[in-house]
Each structure stands twice: as C-alpha cells, then as structure tokens.
C-alpha cells in the first residue's frame, strides 16, 4: 500500500536557522515524490518535485530510495516560509497520496 508519513505536526525554528521537514514513504514501485505548500489564506500549490531536481525558494529535496525518504531542506529559514507543507507520492497516474502535513513556523 502507498503511504506517506510526516512525523512532525509542527516545526518551529528561528529566522536564519536550517530547516528539515521529514517525509518517509512506502511504495513498492518507482514513486514520484512532491512537496506541496499552503501559505496562510492561499491555496495548496506545488513547491517542488523530485524529478526536477531543482531548488525552489531555497528549498531542496533529495529522494533517498534506500531510506525511502524525501526530506525537504532549506539552509536558512525566512519568516515567509511559515506555512503548511505536505509531502505527496504518485504512482504516475496523478492520484496523489498525501502525508498529514507539517506546519512550519519561522519566528523572527
């Protein structure tokens, strides 16, 4: 069965501190992994996907198949990064399986 686990409901850091939002998945095939973000009063939107191997807003995420992880990282958090972050998995047919989300709070 496909499953995405985000162990932290809330992650609170100070501005300028490094951030790592954890995501682990279970899937028997070759998954596609994504991070979606929902800022306050905005809609859920794609942040990045593992196949793009790109950095968006300073965030990166590396797919580690050995550890079945797709952690989201940023070296220096900004206040505007405060949001709800969802890790999601797809088997290629766009039926996304989401984790429960992690709320990131960046304090000044």
């Amino acid at each position: 069965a496909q499953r995405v686990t985000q162990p932290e409901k809330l992650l609170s850091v100070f501005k300028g501190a490094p951030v790592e939002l954890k995501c682990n998945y279970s899937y028997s095939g070759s998954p596609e992994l994504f991070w979606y973000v929902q800022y306050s009063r905005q809609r859920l939107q794609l942040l990045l996907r593992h196949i793009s191997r790109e950095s968006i807003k300073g965030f990166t995420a590396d797919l580690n198949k050995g550890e079945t992880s797709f952690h989201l990282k940023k070296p220096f958090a900004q206040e505007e990064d405060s949001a709800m972050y969802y890790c999601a998995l797809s088997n290629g047919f766009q039926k996304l399986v989401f984790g429960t989300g992690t709320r990131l709070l960046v304090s000044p």
Partner: protein
Amino acid sequence: EAGVTQFPSHSVIEKGQTVTLRCDPISGHDNLYWYRRVMGKEIKFLLHFVKESKQDESGMPNNRFLAERTGGTYSTLKVQPAELEDSGVYFCASSQRQGTGELFFGEGSRLTVL
C-alpha cells in the same frame, strides 16, 4: 488566468441534509480531482475525472457521495444524506496533462455537519 474555483467556501448543514459542492477547473484542463481533508488527517483522494468520464473513483467513501462532471467542464460533488463524519475540507484540483504531478488546487469548500 482564473484558477480553480470552488463554491461554497463554507457550508454548515444538519445531519441528514443534502449538500452540493461545485468546482470549476482551469479552462482547458481535462483532468479534475476531488480530495478531502478530515480534521487532523491527511488529504485523501476521492475521485478523478478525465473530461466527463470517471477515471478513478476508488476513494469515494460510500454511496452517499455522488460526483458528476456533465459536459466535461465544471463538476459537482453531492453528499446525501450528510453524516457527522463527512465534515472536512473538500478540495478540487485540475491539471492539463497526466503524469506531471502538478495539480492546481482550489481554495477548498469547508463542510460542517452538525
């Protein structure tokens, strides 16, 4: 360009009543999805339309839920009769192509069943 729009933004009904949620996808997007987030839990897939056809409805909880997409444009999700456990936020999303993983979400319709 208008994004995915959902109506109503919030609906409060009593157990046993009927509610219909509407979603207008981005123009030209053949794929339309419904998801639901129950409080404290993950966002769960309900179903997927390709144009007017149901591609996958494996996430629909039970036969109290009926989704339609007549003409392949907007979609409605009807809950009849509503139960307490149906409370949550219902998200609609659309996409142009399959396999890219980028879904464009609406703001969601919050349903509260009393």
